[in-house]
């Protein structure tokens, strides 16, 4: 057996009261592709942060090539031979590929960059990972995203890394681009590099990985050769023993659909979406990152309008070319990225809640009714128990969960007919999560249609009356309430046997 390039023993990490990692053993051999899988919150990203030096383990050891890694410095980890490639390439559009690869450690003679040597090196690197060596002189901004992704791998490799961490590299790539990526990974494996491959797309694992380690709740539940596991088995290991379904006991929805979507599509994102949500019904769209669920949400809210198909709300056809259109049609949306799309951080709770209802709160068309704003905000503060001194508190000063409650409250002010929720509880503590679920179900009980878009599988199954699984921009399976996590996950992750919808 080959030597272990990376060796973790008994690694533990706590964040406040949460035990993110509970004694993890993990190793990567030379010339091995080691897949690391687990649900959101299983501890993958914490593990990666520790290996790449961004965090320090509370207990346990990390050794690279037999030498212990000390101190939480990414620089030290890099020098020890760890290279990390994140999902979004961190590149400079105006610099060429070669310049990006060597940025910060140019090969110099005097102050001048040794372009000739650098070009040769880049040519070799690009050839090694299967790219056209001529792109060394091309501006990165002129390359498609997939090639940028590969360039960031080349960048990671310019400094002779021993262990390469690929954090969901395929999430934003097309199938053909993934083939290229796999070619690169295989070349690197052949060159003796140890590769940690993180992916939600379990169907990829059989193609690319030699070994699979499954994390669950901060513990390693399995570490086996890939050939011994099926997609279905991996999915079961990830979700573990399912607790008795803690789903809300809700009456079967009846009546004409509130939201009716027919043939909806947007070029390059998703196509042919058929969807009906009845009053008081909660429907979930479940798909992995890159499946197109986020684009569906944005189309329904008019942020990135659809270019095909129709949407009806309460039987009336509506035009959704902007969020204003959507709001006028009775559609509200809780955006997925709280920091960027949700909160006005340095503004008050009241400001944040009222911000989508300015015209609604106007007197004489322009005078803003601050008293009503205040009373609405105070009302929500009581209903959803936001821990804040008063509604004048800046939202940026609240915890993530409370911020999310504020943004949700904004959507509930005028009880929308259709509520689209994108990742409603990401980065939110358990208490806030329950409360958000309660608020959403309350709204549904009032006769609204709720569409949940989430990559959090337990949440999806707990909330939704129906789950539609989306892959590559199309609905591939539909599950009724009570489906098992493993089934849904396997369908979303590309278990071809079951996905022949």
């Amino acid at each position, binding site marked *: 057996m080959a030597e272990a390039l990376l060796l973790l023993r008994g690694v533990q990490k706590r964040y406040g009261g949460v035990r993110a990692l509970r004694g993890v053993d993990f190793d990567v051999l030379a010339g091995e592709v080691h897949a690391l899988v687990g649900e959101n919150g299983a501890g993958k990203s914490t593990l990666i942060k520790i290996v790449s030096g961004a965090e320090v383990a509370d207990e346990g050891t990390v050794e690279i090539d037999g030498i212990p890694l000390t101190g939480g410095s990414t620089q030290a980890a890099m020098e020890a031979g760890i290279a990390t490639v994140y999902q979004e390439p*961190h590149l400079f559009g*105006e610099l060429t590929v070669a310049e990006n690869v060597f940025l*910060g450690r140019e090969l110099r003679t005097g102050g001048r960059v040794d372009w000739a040597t650098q070009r040769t090196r880049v040519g070799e690197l690009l050839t090694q990972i299967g790219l056209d060596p001529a792109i060394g002189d*091309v501006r990165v901004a002129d390359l498609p995203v997939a090639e940028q992704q590969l360039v960031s791998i080349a960048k990671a490799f310019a400094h002779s890394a021993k262990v390469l961490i690929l954090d969901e590299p395929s999430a934003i790539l097309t199938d053909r681009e993934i*083939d290229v990526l796999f*070619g*690169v990974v295989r*070349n690197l494996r052949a060159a003796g590099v140890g590769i940690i491959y993180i992916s939600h797309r379990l169907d990829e694992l059989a193609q690319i990985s030699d070994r699979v380690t499954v994390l669950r709740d901060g513990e390693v539940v399995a570490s086996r050769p890939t050939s011994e596991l099926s997609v279905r088995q991996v999915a079961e290991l990830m979700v573990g023993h399912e607790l008795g379904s803690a789903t809300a006991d809700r009456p079967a929805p009846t009546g004409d659909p509130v939201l009716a979507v027919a043939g909806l599509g947007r070029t390059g994102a998703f196509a042919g979406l058929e969807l009906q949500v009845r009053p008081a019904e909660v429907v979930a769209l479940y798909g992995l990152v890159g499946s197109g669920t986020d684009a569906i949400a944005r189309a329904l809210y008019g942020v990135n309008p659809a270019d095909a198909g129709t949407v009806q709300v309460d039987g009336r056809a509506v035009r959704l070319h902007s969020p204003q259109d959507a709001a006028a049609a009775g559609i509200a949306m809780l955006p997925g990225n709280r920091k960027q799309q949700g909160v006005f951080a340095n503004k008050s709770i009241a400001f944040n809640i009222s911000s989508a209802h300015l015209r609604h709160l106007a007197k004489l068309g322009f005078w803003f009714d601050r008293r009503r704003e205040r009373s609405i905000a105070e009302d929500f503060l009581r209903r959803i128990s936001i821990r804040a001194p008063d509604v004048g508190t800046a939202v940026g000063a609240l915890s993530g969960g409370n911020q999310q409650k504020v943004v949700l409250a904004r959507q509930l002010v005028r009880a929308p007919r259709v509520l689209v929720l994108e990742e409603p509880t990401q980065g939110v503590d358990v208490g806030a999560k329950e409360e958000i679920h309660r608020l959403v179900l309350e709204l549904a009980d009032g006769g609204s249609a709720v569409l949940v878009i989430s990559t959090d599988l337990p949440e999806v199954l707990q909330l939704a009356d129906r789950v539609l699984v989306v892959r590559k921009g199309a609905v591939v399976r539909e599950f009724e309430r009570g489906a098992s996590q493993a089934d849904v996950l396997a369908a979303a992750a590309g278990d071809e046997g079951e996905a022949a919808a």
Partner: protein
Amino acid sequence: MNATTTAVAAPTRRRPRVRAIEGQELALIAVVGLLWVVLTLVTDTFLTTGNLQNILFTVAPIALIGIGMTAVIVTAGIDVSVGSQAAVVMVIVALLVRDSGLPFVAAAAVAVVVGLVLGAVNGLLVAYGGIHPIIVTFGTLNIYRFVSLQIFGTEQVAGVPGTLAPIGGGAEGRLLGVPTAWWLTLVLAAGMWCYMRYWATGRHLYAVGGDAFAARLAGVRVRRRQISAYVLTGACVGLAACVLIGSGGLVQQNVGTGLELRVIAAVVIGGTSIIGGRGTVLGTLLGALLVGTVSSAVTLLSWPTELAQLFIGLFILVAVGVDLLRERRRSAR
């Protein structure tokens, strides 16, 4: 396996190479060339040695400061204090030349050193103060203007001797018929062009302007690069101040007011992105030349001189607008 993946990775698509002269610069060369041809045909005074010398000489200070300003704007900064910097340098140098009889080389050295110091203050405030560059330099614009007025005292500096005439606008200030100030500009611009294109730290300027945080993670010394850009601008202002004093005479208290806007206009017309991360010294040189040509043209055609500003405004809009469109098409692809 390698053979197939390589084939996939290299689809037949036009790959724009980075060229020595870029699209916008070619367009500028064409516009300036066209203007010159038209002006030659329409007026009989344009294509005269005297007029061309005059254009080149008046453009030189703007182009000189533009060299530094390009670096500053490429790092996503801006320096609106250059006019006041020029005033400080000019009054100091003019007084030293007149009252202490400072020789040419020493005067130029003093000018550059004073410029360096003024630029360093800006650079330090931007890099370490965490203040937006436009606020910092608006502040120092006022402060430097105060400094210059304080040195002026109650009177303008009259009777400055022609110590600096070798780079001035007169007959002494020419080499092979071309103003030496313009030679100086060309040499510096060429040096800066090479630096920003081939030197590691020169390339880092672009990385700083593209994404300062990511640049720092990659090991680029962001603060050092920022400071260097402002310091360089100060030094360029020093040289430009010498050119402006030139053959001497009178240095008035309002020297340099509005200079910053003319320099920024030249840089922006030259294709440097105000958001940072993109731009070349060659473009700035051409931008300055275009501005100078237009001003000269307006005079030669005996239109109101103020019309030149209207054209400058329009050129800015066209230059940046074309760039915006190109950028939008690029991101839409």
